[in-house]
């Protein structure tokens, strides 16, 4: 019983991080129909930004979140204005956007090698090894904070998309960009904002991941694969669906140890991906408007 509870808490806490990683990828694809392969690169960049701000300037990684989010947003906007907006839209631009953003990821990765070498880094705070008791089990303080931030981010994103003019415009553009132009929505600006928000979410996820795990310039690759699994499971265009899918993936990975050797648990998520694509190709929580 205690073991089951411990595993469940581990899964829930891990799901928070997974969901934060996946929001941005799903949002950008849902609106722009672009698979942002540079999402992995921005996760890596977010971790390094947090590490730099902490190790050089002594800023607590959680306090540096707004700054990392702002820089990532700015980078996303710049990337959109200089490169992405010039690509053909929809299916016609599929391959070009994949290659372009894959190239940006390579540049970011090699830049990280040049600046920081390939050594593993950790964001070492005073509370990095602190634990608190939750329902009688010892849990990492860092993981609890990461989960809290992930929940707040989810709520913020949900409110942004449902309660604000910009959010409603984003959803409208996702449904029908041509009609939005007719009613006066500046579609290009919405695309730019969406790309910026998605990139900022990747930066935030990277910073949160960096507070829990060691990272190097390869950080983000495995995480991107998990994002794909989550977005496919959750369906496109649903923030709550993304969160639920993240919980499913985390739970499957964590509980799999009861049935299979630990070294195989990482593969379980991808088996799940294949099964969902075969039996429920719309995902568990996807919205038809974006499907």
């Amino acid at each position, binding site marked *: 019983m205690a073991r089951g509870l411990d595993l469940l808490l581990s899964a829930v806490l891990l799901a928070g991080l997974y969901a934060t990683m996946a929001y941005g990828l799903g949002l950008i694809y849902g609106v722009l129909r672009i698979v942002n392969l540079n999402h992995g690169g921005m996760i890596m960049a977010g971790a390094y930004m947090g590490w730099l701000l902490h190790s050089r300037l002594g800023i607590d990684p959680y306090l540096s979140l707004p700054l990392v989010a702002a820089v990532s947003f700015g980078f996303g906007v710049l990337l959109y204005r200089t490169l992405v907006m010039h690509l053909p839209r929809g299916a016609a631009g599929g391959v070009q956007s994949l290659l372009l953003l894959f190239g940006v990821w390579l540049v970011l990765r*090699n830049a990280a090698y040049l600046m920081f070498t390939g050594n593993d880094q950790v964001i070492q705070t005073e509370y990095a090894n602190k634990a608190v008791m939750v329902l009688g089990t010892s849990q*990492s303080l860092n993981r609890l904070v990461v989960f809290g931030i992930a929940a707040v981010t989810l709520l913020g994103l949900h409110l942004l998309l449902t309660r604000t003019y910009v959010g409603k415009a984003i959803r409208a553009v996702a449904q029908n960009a041509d009609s939005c132009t007719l009613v006066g929505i500046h579609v290009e600006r919405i695309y730019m904002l969406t790309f910026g928000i998605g990139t900022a979410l990747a930066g935030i996820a990277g910073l949160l991941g960096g507070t829990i795990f060691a990272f190097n310039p390869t950080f983000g690759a495995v995480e991107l694969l998990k994002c794909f699994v989550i977005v496919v499971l959750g369906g496109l265009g649903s923030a709550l669906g993304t969160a639920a899918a993240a919980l499913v993936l985390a739970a499957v990975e*964590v509980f799999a140890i009861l049935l299979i050797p630990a070294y195989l648990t*990482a593969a379980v998520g991808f088996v799940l991906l294949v099964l969902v694509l075969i039996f429920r190709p719309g*995902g568990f929580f996807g919205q038809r408007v974006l499907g």
Partner: protein
Amino acid sequence: MDQRFRRIALAAPVLLLLLPNSSWGQPGGGKTSDKKLPDKILIGATLPLTGAESRIGGFYKEGYDLAFEEANRAGGLQVGGKRIPVALQLLDDTTTQATAVQLADRLINVDKVHFLLGTYSTTLVQAQSGMAEQNRIPYVNGGGAATEIYQQKYKYLFGLLAPVELLADTMMRWIDVQQKAGKLPKPATIAVVWENTSHGKDFRKGVAAYVKGRASDYKIVLDESFELNAKDFSALLNAVKASKADILLADVHLPDYITMQRQYVTAGMCHKVLSYGARGSEKQAAEALGQKNVSYILSAVWWNAQLGSKGLTKKFVDLFQAKYHRMPEWYQALGYETARVLFTAIEQAGSVDREAVRAKLAAMNIETILPGGKLSFPADKGQQAHYPFVVQQNTPDGKSPIVFPADVANAPGVAPNPDCKG
């Protein structure tokens, strides 16, 4: 779900496999190998200077650099009656098998190096050793310990790391001493967790072999493997916790040690005896985790600077300290000794003829800085060196004295871990 996204989601893993891990390459150069004496002896090597094992790769590089510097300070290697400078052509294998093999091929067939020194970590050495064998070029490594590498009975492969099975055996012998002294329960329950590589399998085999036939003394209550360079060990540690073992013996590489120990500490776990195999005393682990959180961890290693204050060991430690202004760890010692062994074989052969040097390596029996003091590559062990390990234990003051075997120990060792409550 959009058809295109689905296709991309499935294709992404393939695309990611194509993603290079490396930074940009390095220029090559070199000479062909023949029986005439060259102006310069060119030795090729790759090391994981980036990627997961980059830190350790850097340590091995320090050992290599020191050995080459020492040889060239004397005017080079004494070959065929004259001194010939020796140069290292070192490339970054990025901690990936495919790159390690590709670069070994380049060193042999493009750069035309005379001999090869090995890279670090079992998986990479294993991948490169076949390439060396195909090209009949002596390959001396100090970074591959798994017996599986040497079971192939390659003629050109020579390994300085004693088998991991011996490591596990030495660790168990120390535990046995503590148990016999009444410091550990009888029977003691053991959780064994090991990385899913031939390195980890050897470790597991070593523990299992020791426990076999000692059922009244030890019981393995958990035997679980994990993926190398994993990010999250919470489920694995949960299984360890559920096993209620007295002793946790893990076999991990450095990045996994730091990640796992951090999660171990925050999960509030504590065992009477805790070991991460050969890892435990590394400075960067203490920096990342805090000294308090690595105290009393045991490690069994291939070398320790406290082994000797005279002869070759002292010479190496002095040279290292003069160049790097700190004490060497076993990684640098193995790097240095690996290069020195190859140099010795070249000098003994009196030529750069690969067959002659291979024969000298096969027949080698020289003084060494490694425990036991003598180094050879027994043919019946696949030319893998065999010598005793030393067990060291982290103390709260940041030191790691040798606690076993008794003849070289400079501290008694502590068991059970006094930090464990209850």
